[in-house]
């Protein structure tokens, strides 16, 4: 058969078409990857488990929905007295961290600048060898531990470990501790909570109670009830966020000037002679402080330095003195300025003038008898110590980092990075390779919150509640609970240690055993009681019957927590000793001028340490309030913006002494004129979605002298329009 050219082309064409059709058919028949989970399905059984949220100190109880033993959704537990069925964005999305593709799957060791996988035993041996070597030379001071944990159990373990090993430099970075440190400094004791049953006026200094505090969800509800009762809230602050929004009056003031405002109000109380006479006994050196205030804080003087009209100061003062049980409240937020601790202590003086009537403290019997030193960070070193040591002596031998990403959430990062690389041995317990753990020599990854066993205490709600954070899923990877590592180390290093428990689970159970023995309270199965029940329970009657501790433990896990609905409260009125601090002097704060604006870095609600960037939903929704997505924005008063001819939604640059960064301009009439409000939380360069900018990289090196916290509100900046192209909204 002869084949001419035409036929040949036809033949080839047919063959190619045939292969294409056949291949196409095969490709269509192939099971796409996205369908595999449908085709190869398990029993698809749905179950619900109760656990506690570990994202913040709040102590919310979670209901986790599992399909085939895999958690897919989390909701609030409606029986929890803290969150009452509510849940925040962080809790809602906490599940997805479990599946995060960047999670470290096992212990890692750095060899020639690269991480290699090793076994847990090897990792543990390296860690304990290093510690032993330093301790052998009696150089415990060269060991630093930086632990960021809101868990009381873990804080306790770190405290016990450092005591056993003789390590002084333990830095516990937890929200509650940080908030109360000024109290511990001044009074050796701290109030537990605002007593909403007694309190009738709240003067809030920059705290965003219902957004970011020791228990945002509890405060959300309590503040609403508080206002429904007709009581007023006055908020002072530079930014009107949701938390401050729920106040009746807003005083615009730069956060660094809270102390002067507090003393101005104290002046009114002292001048009117309306302060609680008990205060004279409470405050050591009352007379000198009184004189100091009366001499220096005449409202007109305060107006000059803070810009708050003197009438407003007098009005607030009158409200404060008229209230039976007022509470002047502050929390960690106040510490992020150069006068931070001093400001806080001025507020403590103001509270002392009313004998802390608005505050309360949970009766010792519930918490302290169960766990010693539950939340206290008192007596621990401040982050400042670490920074000074590393900068001056350069003698740190071992650094242990647990849960903290301090490079990301500190200013002057370049210097920190340089200094930290000179430390010979760094061990990190992080679950991710983040900005800080990338400098580690050894990583022993911690469990995810959903894989851990823990107990949550939160005193700041005034409710005696203990929620159980139980593992809802078996550990996915070869991770180890940091608590277990610490306990093993304690046994290996601390000769004096008398810690009898084998692991965290054992320790947690021992705490539960105390609950079982004590029985002051009930399972968290209902949160409303009839009057008769209340009466019966007050006299010690309880309907709960358990055959053994194991029986109790099982019921506790099933109920998700334990609480004492009628927990007694103590009044809070400690002795205030501010020796050497008052009379003192506040640093003068440079105010925004015509061209020098103030860069005011604020934290997004619930994003305590910039960890939102881990979660894809939260990263996308970061700027949802202003419809700015994946970008860092600046909220600016329209009048200020017009002065620099910046349009709404246009892009601009903010210039500081450290450099410039791009932002999207957002008009917000409730921002202080002269302020540039920039959110913190985006801008991770190693971890998470690489979106936005970390404004901390551009702040000047201003720190609070006492706590070493960076000042986020005093950097001077300029703003320049970068182009007229507007961004979609």
């Amino acid at each position, binding site marked *: 058969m002869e084949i001419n050219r035409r036929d040949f082309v036809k033949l080839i064409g047919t063959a190619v078409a045939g292969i294409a059709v056949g291949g196409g058919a095969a490709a269509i028949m192939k099971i796409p990857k996205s369908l595999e989970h449908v085709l190869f399905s398990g029993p698809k059984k749905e179950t619900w488990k109760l656990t506690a949220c570990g994202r913040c100190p709040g102590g919310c109880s979670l209901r986790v929905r599992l399909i085939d033993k*895999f*958690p*897919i*959704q989390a*909701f*609030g537990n409606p029986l929890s007295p803290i969150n*009452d*069925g*509510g*849940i*925040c*964005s962080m809790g*809602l*999305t906490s*599940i*997805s*961290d*479990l*599946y*995060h*593709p960047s999670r470290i799957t096992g212990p890692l060791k750095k060899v020639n600048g690269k991480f290699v996988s090793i076994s847990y035993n090897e990792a543990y041996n390296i860690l304990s060898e290093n510690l032993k070597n330093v301790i052998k030379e009696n150089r415990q001071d060269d060991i630093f531990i930086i632990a960021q944990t809101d868990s009381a159990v873990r804080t306790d373990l770190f405290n016990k470990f450092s005591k056993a090993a003789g390590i002084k430099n333990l830095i516990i970075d937890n929200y509650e501790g940080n908030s109360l440190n000024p109290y511990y400094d001044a009074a050796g004791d701290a109030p537990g909570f605002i007593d909403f049953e007694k309190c009738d006026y709240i003067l809030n200094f920059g705290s965003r109670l*219902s*957004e970011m505090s020791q228990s*945002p*969800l509890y405060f*959300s*509800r309590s503040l*609403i009830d508080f*206002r429904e009762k007709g009581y007023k809230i006055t908020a002072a602050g530079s930014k*009107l966020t*949701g*938390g401050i*929004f*729920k106040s*009746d*009056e*807003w005083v*615009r003031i730069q956060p660094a000037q809270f102390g002067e405002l507090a003393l101005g109000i104290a002046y009114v109380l002292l001048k009117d002679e309306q302060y609680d006479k008990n205060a004279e006994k409470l405050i050591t050196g009352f007379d000198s402080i009184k004189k100091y205030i009366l001499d220096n804080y005449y409202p007109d003087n305060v107006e000059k330095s803070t810009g708050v009209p003197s009438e407003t100061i007098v009005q607030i003062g009158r409200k404060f003195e008229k209230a039976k049980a007022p509470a002047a409240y502050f929390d960690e937020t106040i510490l992020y300025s150069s006068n931070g601790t001093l400001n806080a202590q001025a507020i403590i003086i103001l509270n002392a003038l009313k004998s802390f009537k608005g505050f309360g403290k949970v009766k010792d019997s519930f918490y302290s008898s169960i766990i010693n030193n539950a939340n206290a960070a008192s007596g621990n070193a401040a982050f400042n110590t670490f920074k000074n040591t590393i900068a001056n002596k350069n003698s740190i031998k071992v650094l242990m980092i647990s849960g903290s990403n301090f490079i990301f959430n500190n200013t002057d990062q370049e210097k920190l990075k340089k200094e930290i690389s000179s430390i010979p041995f760094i061990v990190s317990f992080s679950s991710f390779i983040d900005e800080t753990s990338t400098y580690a020599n050894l990583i022993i990854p911690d469990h995810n919150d959903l894989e851990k066993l823990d107990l949550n205490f939160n005193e700041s709600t005034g409710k005696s509640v203990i929620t159980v954070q139980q593992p809802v899923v078996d550990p996915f990877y070869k991770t180890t609970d940091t608590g277990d590592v610490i306990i093993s180390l304690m046994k290996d290093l601390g000769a004096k240690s008398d810690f009898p428990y084998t692991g965290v689970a054992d320790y947690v159970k021992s705490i539960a055993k105390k609950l079982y023995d004590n029985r002051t309270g009930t399972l968290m199965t209902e949160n409303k009681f009839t009057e008769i029940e209340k009466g019966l329970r007050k006299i010690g009657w309880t309907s709960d019957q358990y055959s053994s501790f194991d029986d109790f433990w099982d019921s506790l896990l099933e109920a998700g927590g334990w609480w004492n609905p009628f927990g007694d409260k103590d009044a809070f009125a400690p002795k205030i000793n501010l020796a050497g601090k008052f009379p003192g002097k506040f640093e003068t704060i440079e105010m925004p001028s015509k061209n020098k604006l103030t860069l005011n870095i604020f934290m997004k*609600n*619930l994003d305590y340490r910039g960890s939102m960037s881990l*979660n*894809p*939903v*939260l990263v*996308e*929704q970061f700027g*949802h*309030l*202003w*419809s700015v*997505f*994946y*970008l860092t924005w600046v909220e600016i008063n329209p009048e200020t913006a017009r002065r620099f001819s910046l349009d709404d939604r246009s892009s601009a640059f903010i210039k500081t002494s450290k450099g410039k960064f791009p932002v999207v301009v957002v008009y*917000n*009439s*409730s921002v202080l004129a002269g302020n540039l409000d920039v959110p913190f939380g985006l801008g991770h360069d190693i971890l998470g979605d690489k*979106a936005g900018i970390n404004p901390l990289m551009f702040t000047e090196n201003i720190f609070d002298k006492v706590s070493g916290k960076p000042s986020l509100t005093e950097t001077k900046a300029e703003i320049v329009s970068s182009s007229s192209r507007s*961004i*979609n*909204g």
Partner: protein
Amino acid sequence: MAKYGMAIDLNKCNQCGACVTACKVENNLQIVSKESAAKGRVMQWMRLTNLSYEGNDPDVRPVTIPSLCVQCDDPPCTKVCPVRATYKRDDGIVAQIYPQCIGCRYCMANCPYNVKVFNWFKEDQPVEYEKCYNKDVAVRMKGVVEKCTFCIHRLQKAKEQAAAEHRKLNEEDYIPACAQVCPSHAFTFGDLDDPNSAVSKLKRDYRKFVLQEELGTLPKVFYLNAKSM
């Protein structure tokens, strides 16, 4: 037949955004890429929006409302749909049938509340987000319009549960995700046909207002003004 409605108390709302996130994760809404987000294609059925500012200087405050599909009783979007992909159900929920939608976006153009979103792309979702998909809700295909459905899958499940237990549907059985998670209980959800339900009582509250009442769309989602400062 029940007629579902929702009241949002602005006096209680503190703009935490839990409802926004809850909606996103409950209904498997797509997470869009940076490029798409820059073009204005973020998918939200529920969002927090600054309606206006109130108060005088210095105490100027934004009026921020959680805005979602208001489930009009006389919805403009269903009128113009050429294929009945969006329609009002007997229980008042304005539903969207994704396999039916042809993607003409006429309903979006006619929605005076701008609450419908379109699947411009089928974007790759982060692994950790895909693993947490709610199995009760379809993941929408590209090219269709989607909207808030008052978490209609929850209604179906609640009805089924009630039927299995041989009882009537109680008011607390069915609640959309946003209303369920709200930390400050700003949402009240229920049956507007029942004069004794909590939401019906709030409908008679003096603080009640609805968005764009003048259009006569008869929204079933209404707001309660923040009490004066």
